[in-house]
């Protein structure tokens, strides 16, 4: 058994900072959305009044905007640092999808649904993780762009137009927020399934790994 470094210190800090900042952004975003909650997906309406009352999210547009337009800077700067670090440190090799990723992601899904029994290959991130973690970074960039498009639709009119206009950009911004919630649910489920050793690595940076003991002839 040995200690194996898994997550670099910078990544761990940025991960946890992002967790908190994203919570603030989604919370303040809901305060803003409350003032004009027009979106539905088929029969699903976002959100019933009881939802706002339960979370005290009604009548908070002004304060929601204030927090949103302050913490957007922390979200953007932390995200930019993460991307920069990931590229400069070479961590991107573990993160970005490669030519095995799609097949591997499919195997992970079959494995997690208990359809396929073969163990997953040992790697820092499997194919499904590569897709999910790369995807969520792209979503972050998408939130910044759609956010800018509705924050300054005159100054950045070209961007707003590119995204289909003001109303579309707002809907896209909202859809991305829902996307984070979905990501969060799957992420938490998988972290619980993976267990303490895996979770602890996002705090300590290290994982305990069993080493194949060499045979003595």
């Amino acid at each position: 058994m040995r200690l194996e470094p898994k997550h670099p210190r910078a990544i761990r800090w940025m991960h946890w900072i992002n967790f908190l900042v994203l919570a603030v952004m989604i919370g303040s975003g809901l305060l803003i959305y409350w003032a004009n909650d027009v979106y539905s997906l088929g029969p699903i309406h976002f959100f019933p009044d009881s939802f706002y009352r339960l979370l005290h999210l009604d009548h908070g547009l002004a304060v929601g905007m204030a927090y949103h337009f302050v913490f957007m800077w922390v979200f953007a700067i932390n995200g930019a640092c993460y991307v920069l670090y990931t590229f400069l440190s070479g961590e991107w090799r573990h993160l970005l999808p490669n030519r095995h990723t799609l097949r591997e992601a499919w195997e992970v899904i079959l494995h997690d649904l208990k359809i396929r029994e073969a163990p997953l290959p040992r790697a820092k991130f499997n194919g499904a993780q590569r897709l999910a973690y790369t995807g969520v970074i792209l979503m972050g960039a998408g939130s910044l762009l759609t956010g800018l498009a509705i924050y300054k639709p005159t100054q950045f009119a070209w961007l707003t137009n590119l995204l289909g206009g003001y109303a579309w950009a707002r809907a896209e911004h909202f859809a991305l927020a829902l996307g984070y919630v979905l990501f969060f649910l799957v992420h938490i489920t998988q972290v619980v399934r993976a267990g303490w050793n895996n979770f602890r690595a996002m705090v300590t940076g290290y994982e305990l790994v069993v080493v194949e003991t060499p045979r003595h002839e």
Partner: protein
Amino acid sequence: MNDPNDHGASTEREEMRRLTRRSFVVGGIAAAAGAGAWSWLTTEAPDGGIPWPLRRILRANEWLATGYESPRHLAPTFPRTLAQRPPRTNGMIGLANKVEARGWEVQVEHAGRAGHIKIPLSTIQKLPRSDLVTELKCVEGWSEVMHFGGVCFLDFVTQFGLATRSGRAPDPAGNPQDLYRYAYLASPDEAYYVGLDMASALHPQTLLCDTMNWEPLTHAHGAPLRLYLTVKYGFKSLKRVGLVRFQDVRPSDYWAERGYDWYAGL
């Protein structure tokens, strides 16, 4: 990978325990510091309805936005056919009583200058007409393509030599020092009032309007004369303009006093 039940690795386990203890202590301290910072931020003295540190950052955002501001940034315009239905209505503050368009006057004041002038609506309406079909953005999150017809605010101040210390026509590019820094506009009873930076007030798409969606302005939309800006949220587009004051002190603003961003620029 779960903790393997392996008894031959006590030193590694011991090392991991030490690491875990240290990391969770550091993490706990960081979390406590974060919680402390959050409770500080949320409980600081309010400045216009929100904790002052937030207000300070909104001012910094404003500074950044004005750095990128220029008359070249025009809001997109739309075909006139898109603005045909009666425009959506929102907000009746300052519109309590019925008023007559006949004999309507706008009172104009300049800070530090005694007296005021009164400009009749009929005189304002003799200025060159401007029609603008653009998307109004409400701070609540909805937007609607609307037509606004009237006269450019810039033409209005140019014609009557307003907004300047010298009393001459404004020359923002050549003589910016001659301009007052802010404009304050209010309904006659001052129940509703807005503060504008001069660049936004003199933006080429800022209008004094007497028509919306090709019809005379209705009571609910601020008849007989309202303001419209493409570069601000709708709450800055004052209905029923009765008073215009040019000043160097940042003017008060109805919604900014209730927690919203004073600049509210788009």
